[in-house]
């Protein structure tokens, strides 16, 4: 069931700077939707428009079928968790969590029940009487999440909630958020992050924002396996996908591309006769490249190796020096440094992009 509907939403500021243009998005009830994109792509702005903290320049936002464009934030049935936690510094954890309910004039018994319930869920029971300054970063973020839970909103909005935490805590809190989502299957969550791992692990669906618009919407694996365009292909996955220019020479069930650098790529993507001769970019993820003997897709000199034990990253330089590629081979391959190697990929893992858009 569609719960949030964004129709043709634009955002521009008074000085004529347009940040978002023509955003159309349906968000289903119970989904955990993640907005990702490079910094400055407007993902936080979009979230803040949903929250009601930014005005919507044009278009319509509906929640549960009701237009929310002019509704104040508190009436939208949402709760937001800020990157900076935004705790009320002069109030204890309990008072922080009770704040919204007190404003809503709930009875003390109701407030206590809601706060205790949220505190239990987030293991904050021992800290209820502390001030925020006496808490660690992770605890503060849990309080911020608790403050959202207490209000029992239909939609949770998370604005980069883990960015201020250190790496280990980030992983732990990420798992907590995943658990939290599981415990509230009917609540919708919208989550903004620039961290791919968070996006891939948490999301039901990911929205990739780029260039004032939506580049692609899909489940994490859809984005990984069938990126709609070169931007998404390179944005999702780390290290980024290698793109190699070439020309289609054979079409049909499988497509054969002659690469400009000399190799041959075969892809399981089917093409029609009219595609023959098209200039395309062949995309291969570093982890899909493997050492080849005989037929090869890519021949290059290994410039630098980064052995991480589990796998080795090879930074490749083609003989003419025009393009640099990365390959990720399992195991340790330090010996390959300064050697010229030949690589190929499974045809099922080879992506084709024509004029920036994926061919499927």
């Amino acid at each position, binding site marked *: 069931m569609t719960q949030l509907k964004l129709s043709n939403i634009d955002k521009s500021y008074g000085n004529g700077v347009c940040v978002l243009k023509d955003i159309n998005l349906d968000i289903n009830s119970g989904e955990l939707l993640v907005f990702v994109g490079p910094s400055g792509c407007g993902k936080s702005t979009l979230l803040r428009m949903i929250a*009601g903290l930014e005005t919507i320049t044009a278009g319509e936002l509906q929640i549960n079928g009701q237009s929310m464009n002019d509704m104040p934030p508190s009436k939208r049935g949402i709760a937001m968790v800020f990157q900076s936690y935004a*705790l009320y510094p002069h109030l204890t954890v309990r008072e922080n969590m009770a704040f919204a309910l007190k404003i809503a004039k709930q009875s003390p018994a109701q407030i206590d029940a809601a706060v205790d319930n949220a505190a239990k869920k987030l293991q904050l029971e021992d800290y209820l009487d502390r001030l925020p300054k006496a808490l660690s970063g992770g605890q503060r973020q849990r309080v911020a999440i608790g403050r959202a839970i207490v209000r029992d909103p239909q939609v949770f909005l998370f604005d980069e909630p883990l960015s201020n935490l250190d790496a280990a805590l980030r992983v732990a809190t990420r798992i907590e958020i995943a658990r939290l989502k599981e415990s509230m299957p009917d609540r919708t969550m919208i989550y903004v992050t620039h961290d791919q791992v968070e996006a891939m692990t948490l999301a039901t669906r990911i929205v990739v924002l780029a260039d004032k618009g939506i580049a692609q919407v899909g489940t994490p694996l859809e984005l990984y396996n069938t990126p709609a365009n070169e931007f998404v292909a390179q944005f999702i996955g780390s290290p980024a996908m290698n793109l190699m220019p070439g020309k289609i020479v054979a079409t049909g069930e499988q497509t054969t591309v002659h690469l400009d650098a000399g190799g041959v790529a075969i892809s399981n993507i089917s093409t029609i006769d009219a595609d023959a001769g098209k200039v395309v970019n062949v995309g291969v993820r570093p982890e899909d490249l493997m050492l080849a003997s005989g037929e090869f897709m890519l021949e290059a000199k290994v410039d630098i190796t980064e052995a991480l034990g589990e796998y080795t990253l090879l930074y490749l330089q083609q003989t003419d020096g025009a393009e640099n590629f990365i390959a990720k081979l399992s195991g340790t391959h330090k010996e390959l440094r300064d050697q010229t190697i030949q690589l190929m990929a499974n045809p099922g893992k080879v992506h084709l992009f024509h004029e920036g858009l994926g061919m499927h």
Partner: protein
Amino acid sequence: MDNIAGSKSSLRWAVHLSVAFLVVLWLIPTVGLLVSSFRTTDQISTGGWWRALMTAEHNLILRTAPPSTQTQINGKYVVTGSLAKSGTDLDIRVWGVSSRAIDDYTPGATAKLSKGGEITVSKDGHYRMEHTLPFTGKRGTRIFLSSALPPEFTLDNYHKVLFDPKNVEGMGQAFLTTMIVTIPATIIPILIAAFAAYALAWMQFPGRALLVAFIVGLLVVPLQLALIPLLKLHLNIGIGKGFIGVWLAHTAFGMPLAIYLLRNYMVGLPKDIIENARIDGATDFQIFMKLIVPLSFPALAAFSIFQFLWTWNDLLVAKVFLIDSSGQTVVMTAKLVEMLGTRGGNWEILATSAFVSIVVPLLVFFSLQKYLVRGLLAGSVK
């Protein structure tokens, strides 16, 4: 190695020395005033306040009992008694019988009197005067002596200045008047300015930037410029001279700085907190009362200290807007000016009055200063 963080630099010593210097500079007159206010007139005339704890010496001329009290013992005429007035002690260092040589004799020695006879004076002032002939004359013999004056402190000055039922000095009344002027003149502008500052910092309305600029512009308008027009206005609308007038004047003159200070502080509060409160459903008024006011406490305290101090010490505004010919509404500053004329010689009264007028600002400052340095935002964001 001087540049390494954490190492002591010579600059630090300069800072410490300057601070010590400023502290001493401030303490000397303040302590002087405090000490002087507890001394008696005699003590003040013998030496400066820094000698208040030391025994002072003062020269006295005292008389023995008159000849009429003489008795005849063993054929000699004798006068005995004590030079010390009842209730006081003497601690005689040296004494003499002539004004030209007051240090001729030590206690216990015997001096020849010019009119015949001799006198022995002991350390505590007891004397014995003898002569084979009767002493004549109406009055006793003059004894010149130099006596040690032990340190003495008294609350009499305060009693005189503040609680004298006849209110001769008028300081008690003036103290009350100053209080009546100062407290509302501090609270009213803070109240108004806090609301204005919140609106100028966090509420969206057209012309906000212009309004802020206008208020900053008002900061440089000298107060004296408005005295006459404002007084005329007060007289025309029927407020006249009085407390309401002086409250309004202090409020108006304090407002630009108050709004400017508070707005600048509030604008620096984390935006996320306020947005979060908005999502939590708080109205602007609730955000103001529950978040902004408690979080702005350092700024509110700082401004109230300023406003309190300069309304407390104000003379000009009070003279123009408050003090009339009835003399019932004289503030302390005006009273002190008056007393400099009428009681110019009575240092103990002046010192006490002066100290009464600074003690309240001192208390206000020391009780609020911790809010000036305490960070209230710790833990809220990041």
